[in-house]
């Protein structure tokens, strides 16, 4: 994929931070609102893919390496399983941090309320881990496909 027009690039650059923030919002509010790690991660990845389309895979491929994204993906997955392991003193997947008063450790209020972000124990952490994994994984997939199709077109051009 080659670079697109200047208008597209400018709009993509302008929209990028907003999409990024929205994706992070969906990830971090996973335990309160519809969405969560996977959906938010996909939104963040779509922001990266938008840049990839606007600026072309050659330019983005120089800054963003598939290898690094794969590492990030492994880290996300390990974080998720590690959090599941953290509760193994009681049971696997036990919610260790719920109602402990620390970060994400408030007790959920009873009845109708606005929703407290600072609750749910390990669940927000797991959402963050899944978000990292999905963001890195999806971006890596699209990047790999874009670079592969690049090579394919180059070869056809030579023939």
């Amino acid at each position, binding site marked *: 994929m080659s670079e697109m027009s200047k208008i597209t690039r400018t709009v993509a650059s302008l929209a990028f931070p907003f999409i990024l923030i929205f994706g992070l919002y969906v990830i971090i509010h996973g335990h309160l609102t519809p969405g969560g790690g996977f959906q938010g991660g996909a939104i963040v990845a779509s922001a990266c893919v938008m840049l990839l389309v606007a600026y072309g895979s050659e330019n983005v491929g120089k800054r963003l390496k598939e290898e690094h994204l794969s*590492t990030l993906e*492994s880290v996300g997955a390990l974080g998720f399983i590690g959090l599941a392991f953290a509760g193994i003193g009681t049971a696997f997947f036990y919610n260790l941090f719920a109602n402990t008063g620390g970060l994400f450790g408030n007790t959920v209020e009873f009845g109708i309320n606005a929703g407290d972000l600072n609750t749910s124990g390990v669940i927000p952490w797991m959402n963050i881990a899944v978000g990292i994994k999905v963001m890195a994984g999806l971006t890596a997939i699209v990047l790999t496909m874009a670079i592969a199709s690049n090579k394919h077109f180059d070869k056809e051009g030579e023939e």
Partner: protein
Amino acid sequence: MMFMDWILHNAPVLILALPLLAAFATPLVGKLGKWPRNVFVVSVAVIVEALVIYLASDVIANGMHTYVFGAASGILLPSGYSVPVRIIFQVDAMSVFMAIISATVTLAGIVYSWAFVTDKQGQSKYYTLLLMMAVGMFGMEFTGDLFNMFVFLEILSIASCALVAFRISFSESSEGALKYMVVSAVGALFVLIAIALLYGQYNVLNLAAVGSAIQFTALDKIALVLLVSAFAMKCGAVPMHMWTPDAYSAAPAPITMVLVSASQASMYALFRIAFTLYGVSMNTGAVGWFIIILGVLSMFIGVTMALPQKDIKRLMAYHAISQSGYMLLGVGVGLATLGSSAFNEYGLTAMKGGIFHIINHAMYKGLLFLTAGAIYYRLNTRNLNKMGGLGHTMKWTAAFFIIGALAIAGIPPFNGFASKVLIYESVFRFSPLLSIIAMLVSVLTLASFVKVFHSAFMGPRLPEYEGVAKEVPWPMFVAMALLAAIVVAMGLFPNLIVDNLVTPAAQALAGRADYLNAVMGGA
């Protein structure tokens, strides 16, 4: 002792969680180099194998293990809401029996891959996916929850599919993987619809809870048809076998071996659905006969399709279909006689034969696929017409092939004989014709493997393979020797295996009430 108790209590989840953790750690460890990564993966496989054997010894001695996820204790909620809503693992003798097979095959596959996988790219991802396959198999075997069975089936299918396509530069790899993917997706959707039908009626997903509430309504019948056909498709029974030869022959040899075990995990799910979820609530005679007919068709069509093959792995893949027919036949006879006096006379023996054949088949067919992989590793061909005279230089591979071939043909003193005799004798009392077909298939199997042995290993040395056809590297040798030793040991002492592993497994599968009471007893 405290530590050992803790390990034993958490063993069902550790068996799953350790390979899962290792799967995602492998790409990171892989950055240190090939040796640290391989040592890491092999040691995880060894630890998992040890955990499985430790858990199996306890389950067989002291009964079923139930592991509840995410809660301090018990499957019921603290408020006293007496419906099992938590996710559980329920591990009985049948589950650990299957887990022993999966763990052993995974270990052998990983050791073999050390030398076999020499591709420049994607080695770390190969091990990640292989460990994910193990996770999927263990999950299907341990879970006590219908929806989780679907999730693990998907994990297994996706990891297997990616590994079938591992050598994507060959066109046949993508063809095999595509077929496998289509079959897996269709099968998984069948399972999902069936689970939705059951959930819609009974409002629970727990296997034991649905099993104890099941009424065998019209919707349950539809769910049964969907579940049986999906799992029969996934275990490669004729007439849903068309993906098996393509996927098995296109995958790298160690993956093919693990795929055999993956198909057996689907077969376990089929048996679990038939015996535990529905059990005597359905017409066991009709469903039993259906499974018997699937088995006989698989046996006969599998072996007749195998005879004319020229591709060594394709030939073995058709034999894998044929051999899974024996398992379906044996356990199908058990299901058809379930609840009648004939069950204790010969039905249970037929089930023992069928279940014993599962472990035997995993070991000798794994061994045969590994020898085929060894030939491919040296000669770079799977075409039997291009081979010859390998017995001169690949002596150990030839010896391992003989062990595997005699075992699959049911020649004493190898393990295939022991399970086939159990099947012949008990099935003869059920229906003599079925037993005769089973024996005939065995003869044809022997004929087919005589052909393979003759064209690959006998004859003069071929000049084009001078210096190429050497003995395989030691990791491949170790993996084959491990399986060959198990085949010989199980053939020499079949009574030990039958008494200590197979009989508890058959009784656990038939003993529906124990499985249901373990969860529903207090409710």
